[in-house]
């Protein structure tokens, strides 16, 4: 099982092309918000979720999708899905 730092590392690669704030991206940690901090266009959140699904071979349902607005929530959801595999 991947640890949190490894997960954040993978997530960082995924969100990079959608990010509009390089500084916040460089300092991305658990407290970073996708829209507020990284200034990702909200329409692109679905693309990020598809990329996460592909990278981790998991499926994220609509309820989880709705609350996946920051790194912390994303990590929680990915960890839960990976544990349930």
């Amino acid at each position, binding site marked *: 099982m991947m640890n949190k730092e490894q997960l954040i590392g993978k997530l960082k690669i995924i969100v990079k092309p959608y990010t509009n704030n390089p500084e916040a991206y460089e300092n991305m940690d658990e407290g970073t918000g996708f829209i507020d901090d990284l200034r990702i266009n909200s329409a*692109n959140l679905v693309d990020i979720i*598809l990329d996460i699904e592909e990278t981790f071979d998991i499926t994220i349902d609509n309820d989880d999708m709705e609350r996946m607005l920051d790194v912390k929530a994303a990590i929680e959801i990915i960890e839960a899905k990976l544990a349930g595999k």
Partner: protein
Amino acid sequence: MDRRVVITGLGVVAPNGVGVPAFTNAVKMGISGISHDRQLQDLQFSCQIAGKPEITENMKLSYFSELELRGFNSTGILYGVIAGLEAWADAKLPSNGPEPDWDTGILFGSGTSGVDKFRESIYKIDDLQTRRLGSNVVAQTMNSGISAYLGGKLGAGNQVTTNSSACVTGTESILMAFDRIRSGQAKRMLAGSTGESGPYIWAGFDAMRVCTFRHNDTPEKGSRPMSASASGFVPGSGAGAMVLEDLESAIQRDAPIYAEVLGGNVNSGGQRGEGTMTAPNSAAVQRCITEALKKAGVKGKDIDAINGHLTATSKDSLEIENWAEALDRREADFPYINSLKSMTGHCLSGAGSIECVASVLQLYDGFIFPNINCEDLHPEIASVINPSCVPSGLIIKNINLLAKASFGFGDVNACIIFKKYKN
């Protein structure tokens, strides 16, 4: 008081030239952009030749971000963005300001948008994969996708819209943009149109048997407007764009001025009389031209050159007769006339704007481009006008007034009058 409107920037993505310098050279030299299309052959089309602009990967990367190119599959938006941004840069206008530019609008037409993207999506949807479509299907497949992409890239804050009127689209977009500036509602408009490539765009025409099937082995000879041996049009694609600007604004910022738009007209034959969904009503065509002259404040006798619609179908002779009647000029008194489609094929919703760019270049540079593949002028045309009015070689000559018309399915017409700009 009505404002005067001039053209301060040009952009073009055509089968025979991408970018104004390459296109100008091709048009002057009579270089064909028609080639054999392997995909059309594999799909067993009757017509297996087409006009497709060549866009390199590097060019894509200089007009779109990497993110925009992820899952990008719309040739119409690709061509339109490249042509539109070329025109904008050509007009020496800035972009990427922090605020919307309230004085600038976009009027960029299209017949369809992202048909290839739509096809890709349909397969996913039917495979129960709707949730996996991603976020970019709508922006690429909405008809206004092209104006939305351009509007965002330029920060346009005036009207941003897409018009659609079949093969009239491009000429109509320029006239609509002209009206908006003339009435003082915008200082400048990026106007133009785009036409997509590929079998899913062209199949319907192939099925109607209106495309030539006689030149699959001789693609460059395939598009033969006004020729006795014309056997249908060659499908094409691409985009043309121009920046239309209030003359005062253009002078104020010392912009290059290519030509003046004097005015024009759009109308429809109502699919009455001889007019149908696919055939023009000649009374409407003639009326469109005479009204355009009237609105531009010029006489038929003053027109130096015509850039026709002239697709290489059986309707070419009728078009010549309609011009002769509307201008009241025949035989050697008829103006020069040419058809860009001999080199590009029929670029459908992109045609009008690409041909308007070629028309404006003729006024600006002082030339009449050659009609290729018309060494055997149709006898019905030769009985109305003198063959010398249909040049088969480049003519270097300053011209003052040019009439450009486009006609389209739905029995719709547009005619625009361009004038050489002299300060």
